[in-house]
């Protein structure tokens, strides 16, 4: 673990001894001031447009409550696949179903094939956007990860909703 002695770069000049006394008050003020400005600028840059790229974790009721604001935003919609609503057309690569939380139903159109575990009554999280027509288009479908999942009867509790997100089968 012993490092070699620092080799001097062939292009290096001998170190210039710096003997200036401690920073004056003025210099310190300048330093603090420029740090503040830089920090402020950085925060504006960082937070200014954060909203555009946020992904919202919503259930159908929350999405409905957001109204017009939900259109166009990236949403992870969590709920249950309603029985009798799954339509998969392998040739057209089109998958349609309804996601519900017992109160609000959202029609979902996904491209691609359903994952192996996908079936009616299972908990899913679909990522995508809500179109103006009220259809949720999704390019990513995650199935709830569990041995003994039972479709909730009626409404999902807040606790159930939370565990839904933390148990989806994906990163």
């Amino acid at each position, binding site marked *: *673990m*012993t490092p070699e002695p620092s*080799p001097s770069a062939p292009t290096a000049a001998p170190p210039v001894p710096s003997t200036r006394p401690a920073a004056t008050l003025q210099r310190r003020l300048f330093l603090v001031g420029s740090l503040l400005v830089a920090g402020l600028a950085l925060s504006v840059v960082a937070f200014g447009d954060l909203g555009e*790229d946020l992904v919202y974790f919503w259930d159908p009721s929350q999405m409905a409550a957001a109204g017009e604001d939900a259109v166009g935003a990236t949403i992870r919609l969590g709920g249950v696949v309603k029985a009798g609503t799954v339509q998969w057309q392998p040739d057209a690569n089109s998958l349609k179903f309804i996601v519900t939380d017992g109160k609000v139903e959202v029609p979902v159109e996904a491209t691609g094939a359903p*994952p*192996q575990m996908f079936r009616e009554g299972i908990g899913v999280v679909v990522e995508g956007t809500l179109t103006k027509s009220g259809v949720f288009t999704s390019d990513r479908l995650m199935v709830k990860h569990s041995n003994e999942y039972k479709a909730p009867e009626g409404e999902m509790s807040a606790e159930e909703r939370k565990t839904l997100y933390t148990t989806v*089968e*994906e990163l």
Partner: protein
Amino acid sequence: MISLLGRAVVLLGLAACATGAVTGLIAALRQSPEALRLTRALAYVFAGSMVLATGLMEAALLTHDFSVSYVAEVGSLSTPTWVTVVSLWSSLNGSILLWGLVLGLFVGAFTYVTTDKNPLQTPWALSMALLVGVFFTFLVAGVANPFAPSPEPIPADGPGPNPLLQNHVLMVIHPPFLYLGYVGMTIPFAMGCAALLAGRLDAAWVRGLRSWMLVPWGFLTVGIILGGWWSYEVLGWGGWWAWDPVENASFLPWLTATAFLHSAMVMERKEQLRGWTLSLVLATFLLTLLGTFMTRSGIFNSVHSFTESPIGPVFLAFLAVALIGSLALLAFRIDALGPVEDAVGGGITRDTAFSFNNLLFTNFTFVVLVGTVYPLLNEAITGKQISVGEPWFDRYTAPLGLLLVFLMGVGPALPWGRSASAGQLKKIGGAGLISLVVAGLCVAVGLRKVWPVATISMAAFALLLTLDAMWAPAAARAQAKGEALGAAAWAVARSARRRYGGYIVHIGVLIIAVAHASATAWQTKETLTLRQGESGQFAGMEVRYEGSAWQEQPHRRSLVANFALLGPEGLIGTVSPRLNHYKKMGTPIGTPEVRTGLTEDLYFSLVNVDPAVGLASVEVHRKPLVVWLWIGGLVMLAGTVISAWPAGRARAAAGPA
């Protein structure tokens, strides 16, 4: 039996650690050699007890001793032996024990190599490292005790570890590397605190600090890249990096550690940037704590976050103490290191390049930190669950990354301390012109996306100047001494091994930058749903579904789907992605099949199979240059090893510990 024994060994370690932290403090305050000797002995006891405790846990796992709660949690009679061995880090409590082991090994090694050459700082450093040890051994002994006895009745078999973690061999090496990186940051932290507490930061201590940072940095680098590789080979989504909170958690300390490795060179040379450099050391350690907190407390939903656990609040408290302690140390002790030196920079010098390097790395850290922590704060305040999307991260990190690549070229081409000569500036200009030609060529062959083309062009610029920086001294020596060029190059590289290792690391980074930008920008993907015997078109070839079959193994059964790939000249090959059904797990987990090539990867990930109907859906990706991500990682590793390899024995005796 093992429960009891393991607990006793852990408690012994805790006692040694706590006593050692105190005797170290006494050794530092009273400059007492006896107290220092005692501290060293206690540090070895701590290291030994951690090794022993881990050995006991492995014994319990291998003998399937389900009376130990951790074995009952992750063990299973049907898993293969290698899975049983690595189960140590497949769940929370075991991974904290592994953490303790790694810390023990680092503390032991540090104790071994620190001689009495730095009597002022050494006892402080040992005391601080052992203090960190107290916290982790406390976790192993208490909240996260893997040795706790199983509640009666003792189960006859266990569920086995998370299937995602037993799905690939990479899982054997990825976590230990990450841990060696994460935990290793404790030593530089202890050394940084020691410098502040002792009020002394001489060149020898700085060199030691840099070496002790370089080693965990290398492990962390490899760990992060292995994590990406694992994600690519196992998870089936076809990517390696998604700005997932857990990935970010490992990336944050890497960023500050990288900034440190650069600013330490300035500090070593000119005794400048002391406060700044030490801040980076402390920040790196704090970010490893933050990362561990985020991944181990279950506040994020991810494959890495195990279940909700009581470890969260304890960790948060430790993080708060470490943060406040670090800030206080910096605030009150920084002046003890000596007078404030002149500010760095002015003119087109290498010093200026280093300052910009540090600014960029700090900004990079800030951006990643904001994007990672924002959803947490938001949920804490508003109760709403959100996450920050990948495009946001890409938008801010891409320009920062590009500027860093630019500096990677410019920095080595500039002289220390004085403005660049006309000749040096001309060289940079020349490389700039060539890089523009490269960009033009990219456009000419039809590559039209701005970011990846800019990355390729900038990487060419940096590569030229890096090679020149390696080449020029050798050529100069060959001319001056009349040696053969090869011999001169060898001699120069040997005498400046650390610098040449650094350049090789840079080349590895450039390879990764180009591979990442290209693979992300020019990938194509399609989902094919095929009936048995039916073919689909992808990337100029035919993908034919040949049918599926079940494959039985003791711990899982796999549904394997076979596809034939047909080109214009006939069969190219067959691929068999599959879905694995683990016995104790309801959800099947896919294993994609990757056909790796030097220019592009073909990636087949099974979405679903219905053997009854003879229907299968497969996602096919084509991604250029992916393999170069892993090759670049190997190059980085090689450079790090060259740079960090201990000097010869004669010099080691003369050099600092």
